[in-house]
Each structure stands twice: as structure tokens, then as C-alpha cells.
């Protein structure tokens, strides 16, 4: 008990304590090397602690409660892993330019991101969320270019507006629940007189982070201009914080709300397809990846909508969402990190690199025997039209297939532009390590964790053989489209 409490506490305290290293300018090199260490306690907590670990901090804010449950465990492992990989990468990536400042904002964002995952009371959750949001600004504008400043302005404006929506929504929910614990909110929201308003505020507020269509503008602006490790965590981990916000506050499993389900499914569809349409037009790899994130978040929004529409399926869908979050976060993080990698001189090395870059991309679009395939199958299994009664339910499979095509298209586009953008040279060893860590965990770690397997389809992995075609045809279709497009561009 004591050890688990200590671990939870340490997960937050260690990053915050590391801020002391910023006191002296000449400690900044030491600080740089500390970055990978910071998420370790959290990772340890995510991997070793059971889902019932909890830590009461009655004096904190308005009464604090930190802890884990199944869902948070997934988020914690993802977040910590990704920050770890990106942290390692950052050691090699960073230059001396404003190193100390970067480390400080990195640490603060990290602490916020980890903290919001383990926070179980509203006040600390909101605190960590805000910490992450505001500190994230420092990562976005770090380069100091005009473009970065502009992106930062859009990011901040939307984030502040989002924060206010969240604050209002949480206030109303807490008022209704008469409790400061997140666990009590869904039931209270379900019963509230002004349920629509609370839900609207929370959806919109967290939707800014989650890149909901029309609230996504900051995403393609901010991700390309941030330093690469920061983009990785922005897209891989922080974007998921919005999703987590939805999952812990909205009335899942309490009441079926087909109307909201419809709305979210539409938004998800628009996000997943619209993101692809907009994304393929971009020339910069990180912008394409950012749109890919919007597109992927669209798919997750789809699931959220379905879970809202049918209370019975909320539990199973949560498990699948967790699976998807883990898969997408790691894969996207790895892809973002790869944008900064230079090609080695040797031809075989180049090939190896391209394969390793492409693999997480293919995983995203559901190549069999990748984490993407597992998540997609699990998703398809649950999102059968017969399980749901809302108006758009029959279109779910089609939407998912279209989403898979869109995903693959974006991956091709990414590889295409990356090929033109990439240079050759030597990568610092820490960049190799960080990127490698991200890629490996994206491809391998997934299989060693206990819960993804539980959440996925029974009879697995054998079942994948039967459903292989359903996974492969979108990839092929997208590949054909890409090839045609490529040829036509080349001829011109």
C-alpha cells in the first residue's frame, strides 16, 4: 500500500522536483540528460500497480484523490512510454538554443499529462489538464519563428476557450453531483436538468484537445512547428488527454443517448475523412501526420459516439478505445520521431530505416499482425450495426472501412513527402535510441501487455487469418489510389 502510494506520488513529484535543475543556467546539460528519467516512476506505476491503486490527499486543493483503474492504466502506460521515448530522443535532438527553457516546459507538460491521467478528483484533474495545456504552449512556440508564434497564438486562444468550457462544464457537473470526484460525475450528468449544456461544454472543451472537427485548427498548425519530440508527445499523448476527459466525465453507461451518438458519429466521420482529404494536400511530413491524427481521433470519436448511444456497450467499447489509444499513440509517436531522422549513408541502412518508418504507418492502417489490426478488429467486432439503435448505426462499418482507406492514403502521402524532405547524415545515438524505443514499443510492447489481449476479439490471433481480407483491402485500395496519384503528378 505504502509503496504504491509512493509510486503514484513520485510519478508527479519527480518531474516537478526536477525543475530545481533549472535554478542554475550551468545545470542545463544535466537537465537535458534527466529528461528520459522523468516519466519512469509513472511507467513503473502503470505497469506494476493494480487497477485499484489509489492515494488520498485530503489537503490538496479541494480534496485530492489520485489513483488508477483499467482505463487510466492504459493511458498511463501509453503516456509514460511515449514521453520516455520522446525524452530519450530529445536528449539527442536538442540544441543549446534555449535548452533550459525547453526542459522546463517539457517537464511541466509531462507532469500535467501524467497527472491528469492519475487524478481522480475534479480539481486535480483540471489542474493537471490546465498545466499541460499552458505548458504545451512553450513547446509549440519553442522555435520562435513567426510561424511558430502564429501557431502558438491559435493554440493558446483555442486552448483557453476550451479550458473555460471545461471549467464551466465541470462546475455544473460537480454542482449536480455534489461531489468533487470524477467517478461521481457521469451519473450526475445523466440526471442533470441541463444535461445537454453540460455535455456540450465538456464535449467542446475536451474536443479542442482531441481535435474534434472545427475545433482542430490549432493541430495542423502547432504540430509541424514544434520540435520533433514535442510533436510526438503532442500528437501521441496530449491529444489523448481530451479523449480521456470525455471518457471520465460524460455519462457513459448511465443512460443511452442516441441523439448525442448521432452527432458524435457525424463529427467522427467528418474528422476521419475530412482530415484525410485536407491532409493529403500538405507537403510537410509533420503536417500530414497531424491530419492523420485528426483522422484517427475521428475514428475514436466514432467509438465514443457509439458508447454514448448505447449504455450497455459503453464498458466493452471503453476497453477497445483503450486499445486503440495505446496503438495509435505509440505508432503516431514513432512516426513523428522518424521525421527528424536522417538517412544513413549505406543503402541497406536506408532500406532498414524506411521499413522501420513505414511499419508503424502500416500498423495504423491495420496491417495484419500489428497492433492496428488488433484494435481495428476489436472495433469492428463491437461496432456492429445490430448492437445499436441510433440512426447512423447502419453506416458504421462503411465509415470504418472508409476511415481505414483514408488512413492508408495519409500514410502513403507521409512517406512520399518524407522521402523528399529527408536528408542523409548521422543521427545522434540518443535519437536512434528514442526513435527505436518508440517504434519497438509500437510494434512489440503491445503484445506483452495483459489487457490489450483481453480486450480484443476472442480466438485471437487465429481469427486474424479469417478477417485478413477485410483488413487488407483498404490498404490495397489506398495503395492503388496513391500510385495513380503519384504517377499522374510525376507525369505533369
Amino acid at each position, binding site marked *: 500500500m505504502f509503496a504504491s502510494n509512493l509510486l503514484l506520488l513520485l510519478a508527479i513529484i519527480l518531474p516537478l522536483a526536477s525543475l530545481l535543475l533549472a535554478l542554475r543556467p550551468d545545470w542545463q546539460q544535466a537537465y537535458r540528460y534527466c529528461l528520459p528519467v522523468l516519466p519512469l516512476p509513472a511507467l513503473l506505476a502503470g505497469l506494476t500497480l493494480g487497477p485499484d491503486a489509489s492515494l488520498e490527499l485530503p489537503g490538496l486543493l479541494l480534496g485530492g484523490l489520485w489513483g488508477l483503474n483499467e482505463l487510466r492504466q492504459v493511458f498511463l502506460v501509453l503516456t509514460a512510454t511515449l514521453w520516455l521515448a520522446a525524452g530519450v530522443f530529445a536528449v539527442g535532438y536538442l540544441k543549446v538554443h534555449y535548452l533550459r527553457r525547453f526542459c522546463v516546459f517539457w517537464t511541466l507538460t509531462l507532469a500535467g499529462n501524467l497527472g491528469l491521467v492519475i487524478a481522480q478528483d475534479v480539481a486535480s484533474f483540471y489542474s493537471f489538464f490546465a498545466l499541460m495545456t499552458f505548458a504545451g504552449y*512553450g513547446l509549440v512556440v519553442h522555435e520562435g519563428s513567426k510561424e511558430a508564434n502564429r501557431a502558438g497564438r491559435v493554440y493558446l486562444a483555442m486552448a*483557453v476557450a476550451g479550458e473555460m468550457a471545461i471549467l464551466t462544464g465541470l462546475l455544473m457537473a460537480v454542482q449536480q453531483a455534489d461531489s468533487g470526484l470524477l467517478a461521481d460525475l457521469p451519473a450526475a450528468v445523466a440526471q442533470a436538468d441541463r444535461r445537454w449544456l453540460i455535455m456540450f461544454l465538456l464535449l467542446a472543451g475536451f474536443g479542442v484537445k482531441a481535435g474534434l472537427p472545427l475545433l482542430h485548427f490549432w493541430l495542423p498548425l502547432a504540430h509541424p512547428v514544434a520540435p520533433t519530440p514535442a510533436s510526438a508527445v503532442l500528437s501521441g499523448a496530449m491529444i489523448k488527454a481530451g479523449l480521456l476527459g470525455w471518457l471520465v466525465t460524460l455519462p457513459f453507461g448511465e443512460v443511452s443517448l442516441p441523439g448525442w451518438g448521432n452527432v458524435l458519429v457525424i463529427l467522427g466521420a467528418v474528422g476521419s475523412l475530412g482530415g484525410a482529404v485536407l491532409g493529403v494536400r500538405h507537403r510537410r511530413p509533420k503536417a500530414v501526420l497531424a491530419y492523420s491524427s485528426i483522422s484517427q481521433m475521428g475514428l475514436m470519436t466514432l467509438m465514443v459516439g457509439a458508447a454514448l448511444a448505447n449504455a450497455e456497450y459503453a464498458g466493452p467499447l471503453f476497453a477497445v478505445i483503450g486499445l486503440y489509444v495505446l496503438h495509435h499513440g505509440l505508432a503516431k509517436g514513432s512516426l513523428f520521431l522518424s521525421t527528424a531522422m536522417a538517412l544513413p549513408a549505406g543503402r541497406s541502412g536506408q532500406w532498414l530505416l524506411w521499413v522501420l518508418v513505414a511499419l508503424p504507418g502500416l500498423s495504423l492502417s491495420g496491417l495484419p499482425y500489428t497492433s492496428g489490426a488488433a484494435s481495428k478488429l476489436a472495433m469492428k467486432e463491437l461496432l456492429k450495426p445490430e448492437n445499436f439503435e441510433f440512426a447512423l448505426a447502419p453506416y458504421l462499418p462503411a465509415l470504418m472501412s472508409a476511415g481505414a482507406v483514408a488512413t492508408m492514403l495519409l500514410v502513403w502521402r507521409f512517406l512520399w513527402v518524407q522521402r523528399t524532405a529527408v536528408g542523409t547524415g548521422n543521427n545522434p545515438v540518443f535519437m536512434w535510441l528514442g526513435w527505436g524505443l518508440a517504434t519497438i514499443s509500437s510494434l512489440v510492447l503491445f503484445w506483452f501487455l495483459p489487457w490489450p489481449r483481453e480486450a480484443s476479439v476472442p480466438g485471437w490471433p487465429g481469427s486474424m487469418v479469417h478477417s485478413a481480407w477485410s483488413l487488407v483491402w483498404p490498404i490495397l485500395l489506398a495503395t492503388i489510389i496513391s500510385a495513380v496519384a503519384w504517377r499522374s503528378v510525376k507525369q505533369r
Partner: protein
Amino acid sequence: MNLSVLMPVFALMTSLLASVVLFALPEKGHRLRTIINLAAAILKIALVGVMIWGVAQGCKYEAAFTMLPGVEFVLRADALSMLFAGLSALLWLLTTIYAVGYLEDSPNRSRFFGFFSLCVASTMGIALAGNLFTFFLFYEMLTLSTYPLVVHRGTTKALRAGRNYIIYTLTGGAVLLFAIAWLHGLVGDLRFQEGGYFSDIAPSMRGPLAIIFVLMMVGLGVKAALVPFHGWLPQAMVAPAPVSALLHAVAVVKAGAFGIIRVVFEIYGLEAAKDMGLLAGLSVVAAFTIIYGSTRALYQVDLKRRLAFSTVSQVSYIVLGLCLLGPVGVAGGLVHLVHQGIMKITLFFCAGNYAETLGVHRIDELDGAGKRMPGTSVAFTLGAFGMIGAPPLAGFITKWTMGSGALAVGMDWVVAVLVISSLLNAAYFLPILHRLWFAEQCEPWPHERRWGRLETSAWLLWPPLITAALMLVAGLIANLPFSPLSWAELIVAREVAL
């Protein structure tokens, strides 16, 4: 004469006597002056600390004597007064430390510190006043003792600001005196009493009482900078930074707000004030002030002026909180008395540091100041976020508590006001922070001074850091006993029967 009588008197006397001694000191006795200042401030913190402990245990501290036929002079320590007294004692020490550093090598220090202590003594008197008469006594004393501080620099601008300040506040004081005298004529000498007096007042009295209430709000509203009586505040920022800090955080604006609290709670009583329909009007004024102040702040290019308009806005939170007729909302308003003080003093300290160290007064000159003065800038950042209401800082606790309180009593529009104000706060603070941390310095600082290893003088650096830390702590441990929030809840539990 037992200790319970003497304690409030002692608390008042520490700064009053200090002021007398400081006036008498020769201009050159800098070291001695600093020692006396700090010793008095520390002694006062100790005294107030003891009283806070005692009040929490239920002790009563009261000293009274008859001043005029039918009028008593009452000093009393209750939970509410301790909220304000604690704040002012604590910030006095920090501001004194700051002022010692700030005024290094400047003339007229004897005068400055004398009036400074006098100003704090008045604040303490306002906190401890046990009836309206005593309150008014110190309220006017505060006006007088701050004037020399406002015009301290002796420039034309300072003198003009001082003149406006005095016109506003003395006129407000006259209105207040009129109201107090009228009330006294109607109902006699009223000590502040929990729950107020007018819960079952005869209907015929309601008319005059309502008018008196409005007059009192006008009189107190001048100091609390309620629109349209706020005009003096932005001008008064020409004063030296420690003065602005004190003015905006503890002394003047808070005196007004505190007076409004006293009148609403302990003369009229919250229920009665609501029944007479007085609070609705007040809440609208406060809400308007909040929005108006924030909006004006957006357009200021001078850092201290922007902060001043921010004060206009923030102080009205306290007033607005009172109008939320539920225990939660009221506690939110009360706790902001402390929170706003800590946050605003931090910001003014920092503004003073930029001006004193770099010669920077305008916001567009701040580019890159974070690299040159990281400590100050960290404190400023925390203060700004506190003002925006970002968790887990003190400002968040206020906003959260007030928001919950407003929702609990169905005054949803207050939440909208809070949100709009937060957005505006963000709009005028975040660009400053961007300049501090992310903009590159493009031209040399206007008047840079160097203090060896540290970014600025240690006297100037530590106070904002401490207040910033306090602000963080006040937010983080809001749920522990003796935190500002818990104390505000204690007051509400004791004083307001809702």
C-alpha cells in the same frame, strides 16, 4: 486589562508606534530604520498569528471605550477581521522588505516609511474595527496616510494622481460619513454583529435603510474601485512600486471591499439585504466592473496601468461573491480578499522589478525579460495565471468556489461573468507572458542596473518569489485548516446564518 483586551491594541500599536519612531529617525539612519521596520512587522505577524489561533479556538478579543456620547471606539478580533489582518500583517513584512530594496539610494525615506507604517496601521485598524464609527475612523486615516505615498515622487504626474486620489476618496468618505451618521441617528451605535441587525425590520424603515445602503456602497465603492468610481486607481499607479503593491493588494481597495463585507454581513445581514433587494443591484454593478476593468486592461500599454485595471476587475470579485446568497459563493468572495491580495502584490512587485532593474515600463519593452530576470518572471507568470484563474493557483480556488456557489443558488449568469472575465484576463496577461519567455530581446534595456550574481537586488527578488509561492500554496492546500479557503468557510459558518 487582561490579555484579550490588549491583543488587538498591541496589534494596532506595533505599526502605529513604528510609524512614529520612523518619522523621528534622521534621514541617514538607514540601517536602524530597516531594523525597526522589520522588527515591527515580524512582531505584528506574531501577534496576529496568536490572535488567529485564539479566534479559531473561540476566544474573543475586544477593547472598547466611549469616544463621544453614544459612540464607542471598538477594536475587536473576530474571524472576519483576522482574514484581513492576517493578510495585511503578512504582506506588510514582504512589502517592507521590498521597499527597503526599492528605495535604496532615494531621498525621503524617513517620510516614506513613516507613512507606510501609518498606512498599515490604518489597515490594521480597519480590520479590527468593531463598529462602523471605528471603521470610518481608520478608513479616513488610510486615505490621509496613503496620499504622501502616492505623491512620493513629487512629479507633476504623481501630484495630479494624488489630487485625483484625494478628491475621489475624500468625497467617498464624506458620503460614507453621511450614511453612517444617518444610520446612527436612526438606530444608534451598532457594533458589527454576526447576522446583522435588520432581519426583522419594520417596513417603514426599509426606505431609509435602502438609501443608506446605497450611500454606503458609494462611499465604500470609491476605494473598492467599483465602476464608475474607479477613476483614481489607474492614475495612482504612478506611485513607487511598493506603494502600488500595497494599495492594490491590501490597503486601499481592500479597505473598501472589506467595508462592504462588514456592512452587508454584520450591519444589514445577508438575508435582510437580499430581502430589501439591495444585493441584486450591487451584484450587477460588481459584474459590470469585472467586465469593464478587464476590457480596459486589454488596451493598456503600460504594464502597471494594465495591472491597475486588472485590480479594478478583480476586487469586484469579492463584492460579487457576497451577492451570491449561499455559503459557498460567499466564501468564494471572502477568500478572494486574500487571494487577490497575494496575486496582485506579486504582479506589482514584478512590475517594480522590471522597472527598477531594466527600466522597463511598457509591455512592448518586455521582450526577452524572462531570460534576463528568470526569478521575477516566474513569479509574474504564476501571478498572471493566478489572475486568469488557472489551477492549482489561488485564483482558481476563488473562481471555482464562486462558480459553485453561483450555481448552487441558481445565479448562472455569474458563471458567465467569471468565464468572460477569465477569457479577458487571459487575453491581456498571456501576451505579456509570451513576450517574457518567447520573444527575443531586440533592443537594449532602457536603464539597466546590475546587482552582481543575482538578476536583481535580493531585497527585490525574494518578496515576489515568496508571494508567488504563497499563492501556489494557498491553492494547493486549500482544503487544510487555516488555509484562506478554510478560514473563509469558518467565517461563513460562524457569521452568516443562511
